[in-house]
């Protein structure tokens, strides 16, 4: 089955590259503005404090980082020409370009960069965002000369590089701006576009940065952007985005539902692309400290008894990808060894349930033990219900009832209740996905809650996991890390059934045929970057 995943991604690449070669005859041209219909409005425009994956699309055009990444996850120059890691693995040294300016005219030098890392360590600035935890590992930041920044960690921590390389840098004068936390025109970046206007609830406008000439090594051209400006219009409703693009009121949209994909796929007036997200798949994490899921056999029964693939097929019309492990198939740390290793085995599942004492079935077909029904409450935060996940959960619910006699209760909760539930740990399962790369997600999911496992929904503190996580984060060798995470994955999914991976969320882009060069950022696979986009006559 490894083959099919590989061929699938090859096919995707083929589709993307063929759609580009289609227009290869035409030369990119400068000019015009682009209107992009987007799903998510950023809650803050400060690119460092904003934790919404979907806001990257909007903020990346103005704020840039030290290094860019190739699809395989390796690092290439951007605002830094290169980096080195000290022998013992604790000090990262970045060499900066000497010709980069923020859009307000301030120079990007070692001090400007160092200031970004220093603020990232200050709880008064970063509290509430994920950069706080990562920057908390910094021991000191030094600027040996005008173009060199050295960051020393308290101890070796391999995911740190991805944080340091990816931190979106803001200009020195930003730190004293009253807009610092909310973000806005005061916060100058180095990007190819400059934030011009933000109309809350409506749109955000950028204009071209005419001085820009430091595109990352993976960009398709150099010099200023082709577009004179780009406007992101907030259209939260998926059907409205589709309609707006079909009727020519916007040029590009992202977030296309499985039902609408067909409108663009087989339509010469539009292009359609999609790419898997990085990070943790959308999974049901099963609570090992509360309710029936405390029993290993119950968790095993859910893992083995459900048949996920046909459900995904019918809900998403084949537009979403089934996953089996703890991270995304596009992650370099991905280990495909669990593919088809479990699931769709109701006989085994029912046997496990019988063995564990959930034997008798009530009139409603739900198993009981000591008079109590086998009922598991799935918590889904209302804020993360998207992409027909509610329908998916309902389908799982029906299957679990029919095949296994398990009653999955779905509860959609507001964020207050969600934090409350996570704090008390009184839930059967939490369903969610995350996009962080480089093992950051894996640590957050599998470290014990009291040791910093911020999103350890299964609440596991199995002693077997710690050495694997430690081993992985304390080596800089990716092959070794992959081995550790592979072992972790076997333990967490196959042996312990801490989580039931469902599908890998993805991003979609549909664009009018006169829009060229839209695509996904290499590696992280978020919809990107207005920089390479150009418009042909239309």
């Amino acid at each position, binding site marked *: 089955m490894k083959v099919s995943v590989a061929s699938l991604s090859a096919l995707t690449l083929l589709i993307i590259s063929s759609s580009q070669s289609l227009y290869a005859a035409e030369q990119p041209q400068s000019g015009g503005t682009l209107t992009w219909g987007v799903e998510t409005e950023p809650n803050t425009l400060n690119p460092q404090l904003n934790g919404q994956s979907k806001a990257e699309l909007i903020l990346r055009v103005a704020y840039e980082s030290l290094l860019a990444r190739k699809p395989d996850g390796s690092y290439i120059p951007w605002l830094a020409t290169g980096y080195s890691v000290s022998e013992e693995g604790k000090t990262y040294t970045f060499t900066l370009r000497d010709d980069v300016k923020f859009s307000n005219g301030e120079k990007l030098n070692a001090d400007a960069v160092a200031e970004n890392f220093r603020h990232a360590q200050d709880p008064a600035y970063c509290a509430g*965002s994920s950069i706080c935890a990562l920057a908390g590992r910094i021991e000191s930041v030094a600027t040996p000369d005008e173009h060199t920044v050295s960051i020393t960690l308290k101890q070796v921590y391999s995911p740190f590089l991805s944080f340091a390389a990816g931190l979106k840098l803001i200009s020195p004068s930003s730190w004293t701006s009253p807009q610092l936390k909310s973000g806005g025109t005061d916060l100058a970046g180095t990007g190819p576009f400059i934030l011009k206007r933000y109309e809350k609830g409506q749109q955000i406008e950028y204009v071209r940065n005419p001085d820009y000439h430091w595109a990352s090594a993976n960009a398709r051209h150099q010099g200023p952007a082709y577009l004179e400006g780009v406007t992101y219009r907030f*259209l939260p409703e998926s059907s409205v985005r589709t*309609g707006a693009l079909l009727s020519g009121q916007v040029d590009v949209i992202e977030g296309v539902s499985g039902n609408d994909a067909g409108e663009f796929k087989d339509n010469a007036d539009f292009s359609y692309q999609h790419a898997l997200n990085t990070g943790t798949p959308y999974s049901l994490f099963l609570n090992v400290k509360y309710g029936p899921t405390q029993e290993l056999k119950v968790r095993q029964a859910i893992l083995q008894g459900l048949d996920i693939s046909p459900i995904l097929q019918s809900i998403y019309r084949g537009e979403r990808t089934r996953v089996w492990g703890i991270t995304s198939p596009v992650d370099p740390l991905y280990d495909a060894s669990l593919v088809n290793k479990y699931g769709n085995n109701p006989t085994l599942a029912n046997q496990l349930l019988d063995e564990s004492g959930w034997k008798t079935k009530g009139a409603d077909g739900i198993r009981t033990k000591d008079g109590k029904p086998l009922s598991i409450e799935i918590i889904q935060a209302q*804020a993360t219900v998207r992409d027909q996940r509610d329908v998916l959960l309902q389908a799982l619910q029906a299957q679990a009832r029919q095949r296994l006699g398990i009653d999955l209760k779905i509860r959609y909760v507001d*964020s*207050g209740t969600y934090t409350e539930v996570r704090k008390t740990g009184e839930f059967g399962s939490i369903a969610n996905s995350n996009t962080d790369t480089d093992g950051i997600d894996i640590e957050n999911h599998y470290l014990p809650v009291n040791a910093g496992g911020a999103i350890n929904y299964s609440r596991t503190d199995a002693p077997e996991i710690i050495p694997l996580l430690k081993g992985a984060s304390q080596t800089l060798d990716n092959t070794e890390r992959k081995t550790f995470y592979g072992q972790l994955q076997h333990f967490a999914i196959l042996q312990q059934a801490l989580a039931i991976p469902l599908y890998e969320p993805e991003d979609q882009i549909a664009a009018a045929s006169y829009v060229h060069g839209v695509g996904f950022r290499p590696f992280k696979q978020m919809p990107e970057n207005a920089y390479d986009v150009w418009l042909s006559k239309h």
Partner: protein
Amino acid sequence: MTVESTFGSPRLPDTAPSWRWRILRRLLSGALVLWAAVTLSFISVYLAPGDIVSLLMGEQVQTPAIEAAIRAEWGLDQPLYMQYLHYLWRVLHGDFGRSYMLNTDVSSLVLSQLWPTLKLTGLALVVSLIFAVLMAVTTVHRRWGQRIAGSVELVLASTPSFWLGIVLLFIFSFTLRWFPVAGDRSFSSLVLPALSLGLSQGAVVSQVLRRGLEDALDEPFVLTLRAWGLGNATIRLRHALRHAALPAVTLTGWLIGGLLSGAVITEQVFGRPGLGKITVDAVLGKDLPVVLAVAIFSALVYVVLSTLVDILYLFIDPRLRDTSGEEKS
């Protein structure tokens, strides 16, 4: 329609002291409503599940240092009653604080979102009143007209405004391209949202208004008017409508509430700026400063509008203008 014509000719009731007393009482009760709105919102947000510090921290590693920084930054380290008193004190000085979630100044945030919402609900109100009056006046006491109008209204009233919005968009924006899909730039971008919000509410008012008209047309005075030789239209518009208007005006108060809450969804569908989304997000995220500011502003809108409705009563029904006729609301 009726609203405009009555506003045009303000006639004050005769006895001055009672008029002043009324205004004073109005102002006092208005202030009381505002204070109650703030206090109740404050209490209910605190009683809602989830602690604000954990919410502000989100799904990330929580250390005592981060927690302390958040408490200090937002004044959450003070006792609750102090937080409440501080808040009241600041509001009296026009300072609504800073949003926990958006990190922006709340008064400018709410003010910038208030106008688009008021425009939308205002036009939706006009739409529903025009619709209601037209439907009621043209079909009352006409058997078939009444049946058809009745079923149209039933469909509209039971259609979710969300769905109506998508249908209107599909026809008039995506297919005919008469109106833009989103934004708040021109009047044309206001038309579809106002229709989708106004029609369903108007359908309810229309049914009440028609019933009122029916009763009014059965009154003996109509026979007198007919005997005078007045035409059907004149009787309906000039005389019967006035009789039927009181319950409809009362209902308009309810209508405005419905429009304001309906605006949440309409703004979402049409990608419009407005109070809707920030309010929902603020409530979900326990963003207390925003919730309180919205509560104050909506209470203010209610106070102003209900005062207007009361004044409107006086103009519609002269009997209420008697000195003995104290407020009946």
